[in-house]
């Protein structure tokens, strides 16, 4: 392990750089451009107990400083992922974080049960926050007692470390993070996309509602990481609008143990390799022995 190594949830990763769930396909798609095993870990596309077809088009729309998506969590299902895609990560010995979701509490639980315990699985990342799925008006991520209960329900059926991925669309994210922690979460991913909409003046319509991502989200995410770092004693993975190494450093200094890069990959598919190389040079130029030396350094 080199100077970029980070310890998280009982594992040592070679660097703190990961993809955000759903922004790097099933992992194999990026291979023509760069080797995925340069990442600290791969975060899976959001998986559900059963395959899910997702939403109709349009699913993506550009904004000035980001984009809005409404993919609707299309995925092959958790069993298919482990039979067809997981061997690729085993062959590469690349640690993964398994992002998963359900439409009901029972579905979260039964999906988590189907995820095996394996040396390469760093954690399960519970999507408590997708703006594009809501059934029966339930939104799992916005109410502290609901978060506590659903995290507890999943905690009871798996021995794999559990990360709660939270939505920024709440009154007080520290309170939600505390509920997740007390429910049994071992870590937090902060933050998911922000609910948003598009109006098309040419068609005089609203073609798309969905999750806003990209650089527009970064300051909101940084604040969430900064505040939760002070209050909640579990590791944080920072996500939201990271476009380059400077952004990545900001999250690490705010207290993130690792970071996830999403939308930036669509703008420049080499963003992640560039951030990894950039972190290495930055540490050298600034005489830090490793990433832990700067984690949360902004708190003084």
């Amino acid at each position, binding site marked *: 392990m080199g100077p970029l190594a980070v310890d998280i949830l009982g594992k040592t990763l070679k660097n703190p750089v990961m993809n955000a769930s*759903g*922004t*790097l*396909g099933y992992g194999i*798609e*990026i291979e*023509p*451009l760069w080797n995925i095993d340069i990442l600290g870990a791969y975060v899976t*596309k959001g998986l559900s107990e059963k*395959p899910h*077809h*997702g939403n*109709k*088009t*349009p*699913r*993506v*729309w*550009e*904004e*000035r*400083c*980001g*984009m809005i*998506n409404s*993919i609707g969590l*299309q995925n*092959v299902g958790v069993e298919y992922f482990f039979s067809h895609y997981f061997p690729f990560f085993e062959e590469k010995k690349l640690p993964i974080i398994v992002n998963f979701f359900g439409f009901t509490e029972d579905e979260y639980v039964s999906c988590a049960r189907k995820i095996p315990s394996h040396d390469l699985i760093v954690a399960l990342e519970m999507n408590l926050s997708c703006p594009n799925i809501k059934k029966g008006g339930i939104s799992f991520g916005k109410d502290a007692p609901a978060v506590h209960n659903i995290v507890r329900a999943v905690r009871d059926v798996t021995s794999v470390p559990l990360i709660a991925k939270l939505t920024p669309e709440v009154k007080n994210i520290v309170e939600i993070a505390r509920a997740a922690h007390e429910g049994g979460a071992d870590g937090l991913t902060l933050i998911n996309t922000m609910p948003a909409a598009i109006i098309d003046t040419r068609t005089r319509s609203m073609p798309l509602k969905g999750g806003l991502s*990209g650089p527009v989200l970064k300051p909101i995410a940084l604040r969430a990481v900064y505040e939760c770092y002070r209050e909640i004693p579990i590791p944080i993975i920072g996500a939201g609008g990271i476009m380059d190494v400077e952004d990545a450093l900001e999250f690490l200094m705010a207290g993130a143990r690792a970071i996830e890069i999403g*939308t930036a*990959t*669509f*703008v*420049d*598919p*080499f963003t992640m390799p560039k951030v990894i190389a950039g972190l290495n040079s930055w540490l050298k130029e600034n005489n830090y022995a490793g990433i832990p030396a700067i984690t949360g350094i902004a708190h003084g």
Partner: protein
Amino acid sequence: MDDMPGIITENSALIPGYHRLTVRLERPLGKVSPGQFVMLKVPDPEVFLRRPFSIYDARDRTVTVMYRVVGKGTDALSRARKKAPVMVLGPLGRGFSIPPAGACLVIAGGIGYAGVRMLLKRLGKRAALFLGITGKTELPLLSDLKGVEVLTATLDGSHGYHGNVVSLLKERFAPHRSQGPTIFACGPKGMIISLKEFLEPDKVPCQVSIEERMACGLGLCFGCIAETKDDTNPFKRVCKEGPVFDLWDLSL
């Protein structure tokens, strides 16, 4: 496949609203199948995501696309000057598969021509192009197409057949039918649907290149999808499993 810096060497309006853009790349684009596309970083900070364009031509270290100005991205691109730097990611997606022998009928509607131009060049004398355009003012789009039979339909009747391109095909299809032709098509959704209705009785082999809003172009985000008849996995990625699909696999 690679992501390469390039410099714009041509960005001329062929007719108002239709441009041809050529980029000189650092390295050759590599092997391109007709129907594949590139994701272009528009040299304007106001345009956040890349834009997909069918490859119109690729040789040595240059790549050419033809586009119609339809929104913010193409509008900004139309104002890019010569020597402006761009990033070009490609070649992407699955292109047309060309049968080893036999007649090929290529149906293009409007700017859909840009999606089949490289195919026409590859097919040469084996191909006949059925082109649907608004009027004769759009004929200059074809100015550099040589050695291919072209049958034109204009909506205003100012050149060739008066009507839409699928009506023209219906009128001229009889002599081709016996030769077991392959059809290739690129154009607006309405054109593809009426083409499908016409070809349905005989299920004539037909490949269509379709368009969708994209974010990544690499199959990473599942933002661009086409609905197919595959029951277990109906939503296919236009950028990865397409943009060329078998017409008979699509749910239109």
